[in-house]
């Protein structure tokens, strides 16, 4: 009846008890505030059940930023520990806590921060950029989001009860098998990723269909904004790679729950199979995160340099090339497993080849700046920080792609520095630039620019302080994931690194402060004409905040940067007859229901409450059937109403 639930699983270390107390308190505080201000109904109607892609996108971003705070808190804990724990000093945390924290840090940053920001920004921007009123399957979009939330709750729930995995963010077996890890931690990790991962897979299908089927008339593939191209390529990657994650995790879960032997070290199991499967997903995943960021940089550079993006066709070709090559490089994550020299050399060279289109993109961005008129707003500063950071990361990446070199620096601190170099420099900076850039389109006012720039400077300096010492430590022979060490000459480097992490935390603080100050000064920062940056693409042609139907009149497109040229050429004002009735999706609470049921299902499997898992599974099927039989999911907005709203917006 109660599976393996037991009070022994309550947290019993100061650090985890602190988190386990603080988290529910924060939730209770939010609940009390919502009740006090009578906002529950508003929250449910306007946000939680909304099928408007922009609102779903904002919810993704809010969750991701909260998770960013959690992930950075983890990072601060890790570097505080290594700054102290030399020789006999045990530092602040037990080994088990430390290992759970770095596992949680990696898992949360990739799945619930980077992926969340990515899907958030895509939801907000992509339909607007292609001149669509919504994504192809609005309800599915809501389901994806709530699956993401379910996974997020499971990851954090581990803190409250049972503890998290200690197997690293990719959980290599046999360490994560029952033999070495019988507790619920690994199961939390598996089911959090599994549920969020299925959400991502559904989003991949949804966005691909949206781009292929819902573009404005006249917008051929080669007239799409470059961000949309990057999303299309990314979503193809999602569709091909995420099933591999699903199966790798499922098989590991079968090993753990039904005593099967896929990856165990006995009974014929083969752990190497898991490592191949997880990296066959994991490497494309890196590009899934970074390609949309590349798209954002392209938009930001062109807009703030007030110049057409250099080499549009080359940019598209580079994206497609990266997409293709990202599938033939996964073995470079385990050159040291002892595959033959030919295999290693092949994958090494394929990896290096990716550097070519990536380098080309950087040159294209630089020559977009050339002979432009550059405004150094916060998004542009993020872009400049990106070029500096990402280029260093690219170089160390090329070094690690040479198999004979990788034998020396693999799994050392050098590797840790390298992937933070590309992920922070490439992904995080990109999404923060994107949030700043498109913020006024959703909320109707700009973000405070100076605080944004300060945030970028703090991130940049903090980044260098935090990770350059790790490169040095790698060259000294420090391996990743150690919680203590004996060599006292390493300590100064770890201390500088800890200072760096705190500086990054300051950068995040400034970013949050920036949002707060901007809300405070929202009247002053109001975006009055919907086009605060003198933009180039369709999203800037509608008022800010964008109406929930995006476009009152279906736009048509005849060239790249349609809006830029429309502004130059001038367009006739629409008349009453240009407005047509439109059909929009009604709100639905069933997405929330699916997320909730999947959370229950995941929790039930983790704790071996089989009856509850079965119940939740049946529940999911029932909800899907209810939705299938519901024929009343859309409503019509009349041309007259659209006309009136557009008239008001213009005044």
């Amino acid at each position: 009846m109660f599976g393996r639930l037991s009070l022994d699983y309550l947290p019993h270390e100061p650090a985890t008890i602190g988190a386990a107390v603080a988290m529910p308190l924060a939730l209770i505080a939010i609940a009390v505030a919502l009740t006090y201000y009578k906002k529950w109904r508003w929250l449910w109607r306007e946000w939680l059940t909304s099928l408007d892609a922009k609102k779903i996108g904002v919810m993704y971003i809010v969750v991701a930023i909260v998770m960013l705070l959690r992930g950075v808190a983890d990072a601060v804990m890790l570097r505080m520990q290594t700054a102290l724990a030399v020789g006999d000093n045990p530092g602040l945390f037990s080994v088990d806590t430390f290992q759970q924290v770095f596992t949680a840090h990696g898992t949360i940053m990739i799945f619930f921060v980077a992926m969340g920001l990515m899907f958030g920004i895509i939801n907000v921007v992509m339909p607007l950029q292609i001149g669509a009123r919504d994504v192809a399957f609005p309800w599915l979009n809501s389901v994806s989001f709530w699956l993401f939330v379910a996974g997020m709750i499971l990851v954090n729930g581990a803190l409250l009860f049972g503890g998290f995995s200690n197997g690293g963010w990719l959980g290599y077996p046999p360490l994560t098998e029952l033999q070495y890890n019988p507790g619920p931690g690994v199961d939390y990790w598996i089911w959090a990723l599994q549920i969020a991962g299925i959400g991502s897979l559904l989003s991949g299908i949804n966005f691909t269909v949206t781009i292929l089927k819902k573009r404005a008339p006249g917008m051929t593939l080669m007239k799409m904004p470059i961000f949309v191209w990057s999303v299309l390529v990314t979503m193809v990657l999602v569709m091909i790679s995420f099933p591999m994650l699903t199966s790798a995790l499922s098989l590991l879960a079968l090993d753990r729950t039904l005593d099967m032997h896929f990856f165990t070290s006995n009974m014929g199991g083969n752990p190497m199979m898991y490592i191949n499967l997880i990296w066959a997903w994991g490497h494309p995943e890196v590009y899934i995160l970074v390609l949309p960021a590349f798209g954002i940089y392209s938009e930001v550079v062109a807009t703030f340099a007030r110049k057409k993006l250099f080499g549009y066709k080359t940019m598209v070709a580079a994206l497609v090339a990266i997409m293709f090559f990202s599938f033939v490089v996964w073995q470079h994550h385990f050159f040291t497993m002892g595959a033959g020299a030919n295999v290693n050399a092949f994958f090494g060279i394929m990896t290096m080849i990716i550097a070519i289109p990536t380098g080309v993109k950087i040159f294209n961005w630089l020559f977009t700046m050339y002979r432009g008129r550059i405004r150094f707003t916060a998004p542009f500063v993020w872009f400049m920080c990106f070029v500096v950071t990402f280029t260093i990361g690219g170089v160390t990446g090329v070094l690690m792609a040479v198999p004979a070199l990788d034998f020396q620096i693999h799994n050392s601190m050098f590797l840790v520095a390298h992937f933070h170099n590309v992920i922070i420099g490439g992904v995080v900076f990109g999404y923060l630039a994107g949030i700043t850039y498109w913020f006024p389109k959703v909320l109707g006012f700009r973000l405070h620019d100076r605080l944004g720039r300060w945030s970028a400077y703090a991130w940049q300096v903090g980044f260098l302080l935090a990770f350059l010492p790790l490169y040095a430590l790698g060259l000294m022979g420090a391996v990743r994931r150690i919680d203590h060490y004996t060599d006292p000459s390493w300590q100064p480097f770890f201390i500088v690194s800890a200072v760096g992490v705190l500086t990054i935390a300051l950068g995040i603080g400034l970013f949050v402060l920036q949002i707060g100050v901007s809300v405070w000064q929202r009247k002053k920062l109001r975006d009055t004409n919907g086009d605060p940056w003198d933009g180039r693409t369709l999203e800037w042609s509608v008022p800010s905040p964008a109406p929930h139907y995006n476009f009152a009149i279906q736009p048509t497109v005849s060239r790249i940067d349609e809006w830029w040229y429309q502004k130059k050429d001038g367009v006739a004002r629409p008349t009453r007859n240009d407005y047509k009735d439109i059909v929009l999706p009604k709100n639905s609470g069933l997405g929330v229901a699916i997320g909730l049921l999947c959370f229950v299902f995941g929790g039930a499997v983790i704790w071996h409450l089989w009856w509850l898992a079965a119940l939740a599974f049946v529940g999911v099927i029932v909800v899907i059937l209810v939705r299938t039989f519901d024929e009343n999911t859309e409503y019509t907005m009349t041309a007259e109403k659209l006309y009136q709203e557009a008239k008001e917006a213009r005044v």
Partner: protein
Amino acid sequence: MIRTKEQESAPMLGFWLYLMTDLMLFATVFATFMVLRHATAGGPSAPELFSMKTVLTETMILLASSLFCGLAWLALRHKKRTDFLMYSIATLLAGAVFLAIEIQEFAQLVHEGFGPSTSAFLSSFFTLVGMHGFHIAIGLLWGIALLIMFAKKGFGSSLARKFALFAVFWHFLDIVWIFIFTIVYVIGVHA
């Protein structure tokens, strides 16, 4: 707003894309099976376990189900109500029989002490074949839902669209089964 033809075809495209992702899922489990099929850990191997007669029966039944599904689709196109009802019930019945045989086969193996924890080979066998069976079960549920819809509303443009998706799914499972039949059973037993 008048829906454009492009947007009408979105569900079909979406469904095809979903099937491709499902295919990837099957492909990785197939690959795992291929890697582990000789990892019997001293336990029984394919020739000792599988009865080709049962499997051949299963295959014929599933093929028949697919055939009925195609006939049901034709009946729907020609708006023949009784034919549609008959053939779609036949489709589901055949699917159910297939599933019953498979469950019986699994139960037999477990009863003999050769469950999925016996060896890596049997883990991958149960998972691969079981995953197909799970898809069949979902398909059966879906088919029943469509029949209820038909009972309530009869034909309508919406039923035709929904049934088309179901038919694609059902044929897809047939194709996957052919691969399982060939790789797991025929090659497994004879090689």
